[in-house]
């Protein structure tokens, strides 16, 4: 699990560098979306840290929490698409893409 946490930390650091680069390039909205992505890696790192250190909880609890996120954000994306909400479509898609990446790496680390 240590490798997984390291991976998330790496993604957070590279995300911060990407945000700074986009802002310096005058791409504020794209920087905001990169901030959303980075925030997902931060949330997942916090969740993983908290749940794996809790007695009785473990990888199963982490996976279940990630699946809950997926269901909630999937619902939000559907809603945004239904209403043609361009900003929230990008936000929810960005969150889900980051989460898919997190889940793939988590499964790899858990095996």
């Amino acid at each position, binding site marked *: 699990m240590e490798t997984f946490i390291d991976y998330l930390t790496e993604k957070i650091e590279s995300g911060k560098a990407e945000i700074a680069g986009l802002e310096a390039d*005058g*791409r504020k909205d794209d920087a905001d979306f990169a901030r959303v992505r980075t925030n997902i890696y931060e949330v997942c790192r916090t969740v993983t840290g908290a749940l794996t250190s809790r007695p009785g909880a473990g990888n199963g609890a982490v996976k279940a929490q990630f699946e809950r996120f997926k269901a909630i954000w999937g619902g939000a994306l559907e809603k945004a698409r239904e209403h043609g909400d361009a900003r929230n479509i990008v936000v929810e*898609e960005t969150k889900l893409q980051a989460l898919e990446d997190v889940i793939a790496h988590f499964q790899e680390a858990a095996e």
Partner: protein
Amino acid sequence: MTQENALKIFKSLSDMSRLRIVQSLTGGEMYTELLAERLGLTPSTVSFHMKKLEDASLVVSRKEQYYTVYSLNRDMLAASLFDVASSEPEQTDDQQKREKEYRQKVIDTFFEYGKLKAIPVQRKKKLICYEVIAERFVPGKVYSEKELNAVISPIHEDYCTIRRDMISEGILTRKGSEYVRVK
């Protein structure tokens, strides 16, 4: 052109991704996926930027089978910076403008995709929300309680409270089991 439109133009162009999109469109019309590929963005991010450019009337779109094709609104882009910068403010006084902004802020806070997230506690905010709901009713038309509930319940589950409040606030009148929007 009003100052509000001018501000939209400046805001939409003060972003490098959107400037690059405009620059790409100078070569001719393009569809979302092609622009996304060229600019290294996701199609939904391009759509988001296009919406901002469309809102500022800088680009126009048309549907072509499965694709949305975008092109520059050359008339708008031909306007000189002097014309845009010398635009007049809208004919509303400051007080009206503040009230309009406050109203919009309340609506944005309490409504999401046409649903009321929570009934505001503050009366002023509550009234704004109820006025928005009242827009779903035709003034003067008589509604049965069932019809009234059918309109309010998809907006918020506590349709009884809303119905009662709208009557006590004088937005709706009740005669027996018939309801009419009065304002």
